[in-house]
C-alpha cells in the first residue's frame, strides 16, 4: 500500500474515531447502543454545513454543530430514554425509532441532495508529506482525531468525571451506592458523545460529503469499530477505528465494489475468539 493510500486510511480512521469514541462511551456506561448516533452525525454535518455557508466560518460551524447535536442528544436522553430505564433492549429499539425520525426530518429540512461542507481557505490545497502530495484538510482531520483522543484520554484518566465514567462502565450499582448521582454522569456522557458525533459530522461532511443514507453508512462503520474494539473502551475505539479505517481503504483499492465485505472478515475472525472485542470486558 502506498503512502498515499496509508494516509487516506489513517485520515478516515481519525474520522471514524470521532464517531466511535462517543458511541462506545455511551454503550459502555449506559449499556445501550445508541442507534441514533449515525443520524446525530448526519444532522451535525448538515447543521455545520448551513452555518459554514451562512457565516463562512469553519470554527463557528464546528461549535454550532457540536452544540446543536449535544442538545439533541441531551433531549433524547432526558426526554425519551428515561421512560425505559433498565430495559436495555427497549432503549436500543427506541433509539432506532429516533434514528428514523431524525433521518426523515433531515430529509425534510435539507432535502435529498448531497452537500460538501466548504473547507476554510487556510486548509485548502495540498502539502508534500515525504514526497507525496496530500490534501491539507485530510491531515487536519487526522490532527483533530489525535487531539480528541488525547483530550478524552486525559478526561477519562486524569479527572474526577473520568474516574466516575470508568467506574460506571465497570459497575453502575457500586458507583450509585457510593452516593454519586449516576444519572447526571449518564447525561454528561450522552451529551459529550453526541457532541463528538456532531463534530465528526462537520469534519466528515467536508471530505466525504453528506447525503440521506450517510448516517447508515457511518453507523455500520462505528458498529464494526465497537464490535472490534470492545464496549466502553477508549483504546478499543482507537484501535478498532484504525483497523476498520485501514481495512476499508485497503478494500476500496483492491475490491472497489466489495469494500464493505473487507471489514466483515476481521470482525468475524475476532468474534470467533473474543466475542466481547479486543478491549471488551464482561460487565
Amino acid at each position, binding site marked *: 500500500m502506498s503512502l498515499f493510500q496509508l494516509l487516506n486510511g489513517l485520515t478516515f480512521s481519525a474520522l471514524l474515531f470521532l464517531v466511535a469514541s462517543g458511541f462506545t462511551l455511551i454503550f459502555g456506561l449506559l449499556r445501550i447502543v445508541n442507534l441514533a448516533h449515525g443520524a446525530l452525525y448526519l444532522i451535525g454535518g448538515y447543521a455545520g454545513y448551513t452555518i459554514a455557508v451562512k457565516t463562512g466560518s469553519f470554527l463557528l460551524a464546528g461549535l454550532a454543530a457540536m452544540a446543536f447535536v449535544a442538545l439533541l442528544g441531551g433531549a433524547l436522553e432526558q426526554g425519551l430514554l428515561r421512560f425505559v430505564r433498565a430495559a436495555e433492549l427497549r432503549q436500543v429499539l427506541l433509539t432506532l425509532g429516533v434514528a428514523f425520525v431524525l433521518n426523515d426530518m433531515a430529509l425534510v429540512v435539507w432535502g435529498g441532495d448531497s452537500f460538501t461542507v466548504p473547507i476554510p481557505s487556510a486548509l485548502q490545497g495540498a502539502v508534500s508529506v515525504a514526497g507525496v502530495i496530500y490534501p491539507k484538510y485530510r491531515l487536519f482531520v487526522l490532527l483533530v482525531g489525535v487531539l480528541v483522543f488525547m483530550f478524552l484520554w486525559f478526561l477519562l484518566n486524569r479527572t474526577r468525571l473520568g474516574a466516575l465514567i470508568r467506574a460506571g462502565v465497570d459497575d453502575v450499582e457500586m458507583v450509585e451506592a457510593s452516593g454519586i448521582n449516576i444519572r447526571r454522569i449518564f447525561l454528561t456522557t450522552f451529551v459529550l458523545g453526541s457532541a463528538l458525533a456532531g463534530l465528526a459530522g462537520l469534519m466528515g461532511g467536508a471530505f466525504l460529503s453528506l447525503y440521506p443514507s450517510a448516517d447508515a453508512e457511518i453507523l455500520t462503520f462505528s458498529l464494526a469499530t465497537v464490535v472490534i474494539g470492545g464496549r466502553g473502551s477508549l483504546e478499543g475505539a482507537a484501535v478498532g477505528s484504525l483497523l476498520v479505517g485501514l481495512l476499508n481503504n485497503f478494500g476500496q483499492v483492491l475490491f472497489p*465494489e466489495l469494500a464493505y465485505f473487507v471489514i466483515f472478515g476481521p470482525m468475524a475472525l475476532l468474534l470467533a475468539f473474543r466475542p466481547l472485542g479486543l478491549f471488551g470486558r464482561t460487565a
Partner: protein
Amino acid sequence: MSGAPMKIDAQLPTASPANGWIVLLGVLAVGLALPALVSGYYVSLGTQVLIFSLLAMSIDIMAGYAGRTPLCHGAIFGVSTYAVLYGVSVAGFPLVTAIALGIAAATCVAAIFALLAIRTSGVYFLLLTLALGMIIWGICLRWTRVTGGENGIRGDIRPAFLGGNVPFYYAVLGLAAVLAVVMWRFVSSPFGMSLKGIRDSEGRMQSLGYNTNLHLFLGFTMSGFFAGVAGAAYALFNNFVSPSTVALTQSVEGLLMAIVGGVGTLWGGLIGAAAIILLENIVSTYTERWPTVLGLTFIFIMIFAPEGVLGKLRAVLTRFRN
C-alpha cells in the same frame, strides 16, 4: 454484557393446539373470502400482508422463542428476493430453480450470520445482527455489476397462471397457511421448547446437557430459511428488487410487526403485518413522511406497550373486567 437473557419483557401466552387450529381455520376462512369482498387493490395489499407476516413470524422464532432479537432478517429476506430475480432475469434460470437458489442463498447467509452471532445475546446480538444486515445492504448497493446498484433488478417473473392479482393471492395464501403451520409445529416441537429453555435460562439448559450453541445455530438458520421463502414470494409479488428491500428499514418493519403482534405468539406476526402495512398505506396517502411515522410508532410502542399492542389491549381489558 451479562449472559442473562434480555428479552423484550413480554407476556408469553402458550397457544394451546386446539386454539391454534381454530385461529388458523378462522384466518383461512377470512383469507379465502377476501377477494370476493374487496377490490383488486386490497387483494394485492392482502398478498403483501401474507408475505410480510411470514417474515414477522420468522423473526418471532428468534425474538420470541429463542430470546435473541435480530435486526438482519430483512437482509436475509432480501437476499432471497435478489437471488430469485437475478436467477430468472439475468442468469436465465427456470423459475423453480431460481426460487430454490434464492431460498438456499438466504439459508446460507442466515447460517453464516448465526455462526457469528449466536455466542452473543441481548444488546450485543442486536448490534451484531444489525451490522451484518448492513453489510448485505452495502454489498447490494455497491456491487453494481450483479445487483444493478440503486437501479436494482426488474423482471416480470411471475408465471402466466399466477399473473392475475387473485390467483397469485390464493397461491400466497396457500403458501402462508402451510408455512405458518410448519413454523408453529417447529416452535412447539421439543426443539422449539429447547429454544424457549435457552431464552429463559441458557445456563440451566447447558447444565442439563444441551448444546445451546448448536440449538441457537439451527434455530437461527431455520428462521432464515423461512425468511428466505417469504423473500422468494416477495420477488414474485413485486417483480423488482432494489437495495431498499435489504435495507435496515425492512428488518425494522419486520421486527415491529412481530412486536406489535406480540413476541412469542407467532400468530401475532399476521396481525402485526396487517396493522403495519395498513398503517403504511393509510399514512402514504396523506404524507411522504412514512419513516417518521414508523419511527414514532416504534418509540411509542417501546415506551407504552413493549409487550405488543395486542398484549397491551388484553392487559387493559383484564384490568377493566376485574
